[in-house]
């Protein structure tokens, strides 16, 4: 496909902006750029077709099954989109007086209350713009807590299990902590003895993804949080996998002090090809004074903004990705009291169903019933046929299915992590299982074909090494 810049022709393009209706102001020439930016000049019809072509080379949840582990690619209901495009939400300035944005403040307030109930927390901020941003914000709560108790200099370590998302250790470092990684036990949970050895007077806290990235709920969860608390640390719940347990169990009841949730996973807001997401953070009452500024409160039916007394400051401008919050509120109000636990039940059922069907062929390193996702180990298949996790994933593209998360978690070397979500029918799950079973057979019969997969897409496998070794990160006007 041609780039915009290759389609551009001088002088083309629609006239969208009128000539100035007041005297043109002449800025000091010393302030002006020497030449115009080389932006595309295109007729609208060609621009429209350009993006239609690009959309055809993009695979969304609307195109088909998307069992990308730990990403909760559930269907994005259309009514959420309709709500988030209402002019009363889209066309309001963030610095309008509170009395003119009561509906928007109420969106933030109501969403906070609903998600606080779902997670078992007392207070929330909607400011973080993504999951990792939420992790960072949660860690700042922990930091502020130790700081106000005069223990920050001593409590410098965050404990992170080795099955955690890479964002956990990276966020801990951004929040000024150092990371202690602890191993998983043979059942895939936190190694309790290793945890007990790791905690101490230098422990600031623990970050735990639960269910973890193997799709397993840690049966020792209560003892884990107790161990960290007894050492004087706080417990952070990475809610990336909340879809497995919402309405069934709450981080707040398990002893966690703060949590982030991904609205773009659990609460069905679309991911936009990599954002905007939203990563609200909830906490227990004792951490609420440290939350970011611009919280919403209600008094006698009037909503207003306020800054918590010992606020950490802010992690983003204004109030977060507001339109994403609108979508999530629409979703939660739709599902309600019964629909929320139904969703997690459906997610766990679908995952177990796929796991059961595939376990006749593929190796399940953790064979116990899973939660919302499970990990297959392609290692044995590779030893037998030479076909690796990448090959299986790439072949799945030919079946019109988005591959699972590959090579994660790191503790399973040839991992494929499958998360079907609750919004898929049995036929869709069966079709994916059939495809994976066929690929298993192909691996034994014609492994060479799988090394070359995908065979039916507009491009074959791209050369990642070349991209990194000779970076071309923009269109090179002068060489074309």
């Amino acid at each position, binding site marked *: 496909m041609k780039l915009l810049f290759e389609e551009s022709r001088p002088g083309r393009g629609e006239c969208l902006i009128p000539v100035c*209706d*007041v005297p043109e102001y002449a*800025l*000091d020439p010393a302030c*002006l750029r*020497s030449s115009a*930016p080389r*932006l595309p000049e295109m007729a609208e019809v060609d621009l429209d077709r350009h*993006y*239609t072509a690009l959309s*055809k*080379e993009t695979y969304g949840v609307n195109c088909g099954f998307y069992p990308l582990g730990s990403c909760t690619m559930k269907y994005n209901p259309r009514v959420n*989109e309709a*709500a988030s495009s209402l002019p*009363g939400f889209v066309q309001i300035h*963030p610095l309008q007086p509170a009395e003119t*944005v009561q509906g*928007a403040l*109420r969106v933030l307030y109501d969403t906070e209350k609903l998600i606080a109930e779902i997670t078992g927390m007392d207070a929330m901020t909607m400011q973080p713009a*993504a999951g990792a941003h939420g992790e960072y914000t949660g860690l700042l709560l922990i930091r502020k807590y130790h700081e106000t108790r005069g223990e920050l200099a001593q409590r410098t370590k965050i404990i992170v299990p080795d099955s955690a*998302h890479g*964002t956990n250790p990276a*966020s801990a*470092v951004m929040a*000024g902590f*150092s990371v202690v990684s602890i191993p998983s036990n043979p059942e895939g949970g936190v190694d309790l003895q290793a945890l007990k050895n790791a905690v101490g007077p230098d422990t600031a806290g623990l970050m735990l993804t639960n269910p973890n990235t193997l799709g*397993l*709920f840690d049966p020792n*969860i*209560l003892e884990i949080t107790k161990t960290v608390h007894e050492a004087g640390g706080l417990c952070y719940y990475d809610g990336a996998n909340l879809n497995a347990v919402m309405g*069934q*169990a*709450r981080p707040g009841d398990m002893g966690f002090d703060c949590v982030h949730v991904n609205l773009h996973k659990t609460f069905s807001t679309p*991911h936009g*090809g*990599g954002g905007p997401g939203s990563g609200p953070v909830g906490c227990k009452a004792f951490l609420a004074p440290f939350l970011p500024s611009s919280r919403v409160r209600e008094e006698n039916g009037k909503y207003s903004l306020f800054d918590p007394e010992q606020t950490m*400051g802010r992690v*983003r401008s204004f*109030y*977060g990705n*507001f339109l*994403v919050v609108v979508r999530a509120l629409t979703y939660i109000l*739709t*599902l*309600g009291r019964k*629909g929320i636990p139904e969703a997690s039940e459906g997610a766990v*059922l679908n995952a177990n169903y796929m796991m059961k069907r595939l376990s006749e062929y593929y190796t399940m390193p953790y064979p116990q019933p899973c939660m919302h996702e499970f990990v297959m180990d392609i290692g044995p298949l590779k030893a037998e046929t030479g076909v690796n996790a990448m090959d299986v994933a790439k072949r799945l*593209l030919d079946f019109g299915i988005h*591959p699972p998360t*590959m090579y994660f978690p790191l503790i399973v070397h040839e991992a494929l992590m499958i998360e079907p979500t609750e919004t898929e029918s049995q036929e*869709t799950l069966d079709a994916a299982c059939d495809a994976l079973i066929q690929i298993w057979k192909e691996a034994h019969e014609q492994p060479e074909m799988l090394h070359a997969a995908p065979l039916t897409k*507009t*491009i*074959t496998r791209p*050369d990642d090494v070349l*991209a*990194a070794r000779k*970076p071309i*990160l*923009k269109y090179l006007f002068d060489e074309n």
Partner: protein
Amino acid sequence: MGSYIPSTEEERARMLKTVGMGSPDELFSCIPPEARIHDLNLPDGLTEMEVSARMASLAGENRVFASVFRGAGAYRHYIPSIVTTVTTKEEFVTAYTPYQAEISQGVLQSIFEYQTQICELTGMEVSNASVYDGAVAAAESVLMNVDGRRKKKVLISEAVNPDVLTVVQTYCESRNVPLTVIPMKNHATDPEALRKLLDSECASVCFQQPNYFGILEDAETLIGITHEAGAKAVMNVNPISLGLLKTPGEYGADIACGEGQPLGLPLSFGGPYLGFMATTKELMRKLPGRIVGQTEDTQGRRAYVLTLQAREQHIRREKASSNICSNEALCAMTASVYLAAVGPEGLRRVALNSVSHAHYLAARLSEIEGFALVEDSEFFHEFLMTCPIDPIILNEKLAEQGILGGLPIEGGILWCATELNGKKEIDRLVDLVKEAVR
């Protein structure tokens, strides 16, 4: 009502049987009973018709102003129709981060095009695929050159947007990076103060162009002083202004960053917005966030992939340059479509009309007694003006007429005009202000 679950009760019962379970509750038998709950205190679910009405009613409790003279970090500009058409295409809306390049060439190419446009706009060599917003972009930028050993502290101008300042402060404090605010003089960064504050331990100096008060900083002098001390210069810029103004690249800045919202994104009560970041080849490997690069497939065809991932959290974990994972991809695409739709001439007109309307507005308001520009410096499309009455009362009177007036801040009112605030609208505003202060 319902949870978007396609399978019927009967189908679910069959699937349960397949997995060897007798009841749905068994699915959660791994959860310790003490941690299990069986009910949530939530309202009952709603049908689509009901929830549509509820959301419309909430939206209806917000006031949409026909006429907006307020900016201060969020700017109302004309959004071409094609922008919404493109950015509501479902594939773009519902895709995940493009990990699987073979079925994501569309979104990858659009990010590559965005990166190119950001480089053209800023005059820099390398752009990332976006970060959360302009304030976070500034925070990530000032921290890019801190190495904790020789370069351990950073400076930021007092004349940046206060939200940007607070976010940068929050990020620096958590990383234990000392941050000093460079005082301003006449509502612009004071070069002499900068000179005194700089030393060899300073990693970077950040200022905003045009600054929070709309004033054009003496970027050349500020960057010159910064470089003399061996620090890197971070310019936080308004992308619309770059339709006219000298680019960070031309000034010799090391990093350009800013809020991309003015490029086709609606006000949306503060988000989703778009943080853009661009830098030099020298600093390329320190740039946080996703970056798309061009490569070839096994048949030698041009293809795009996420690249330079050795910087990122999923590879480097605690040694990563940042924790960013999701960014604002769809907002980046929005900016890219916007820039392609307006083209170089359209962008120039948007910038020119904005600056001209702002100057016309300033001149007209100055006719009224008690309204005067606080500074006589060159400004872009915002300016600080005194106000003879309580600005809040003035704004209440304007609001009655459907106008969102300038933002009351210390020293007066911060007014803003864009290409949307035409002569008629400005004349009407001035008449209403005259009446209000009489």
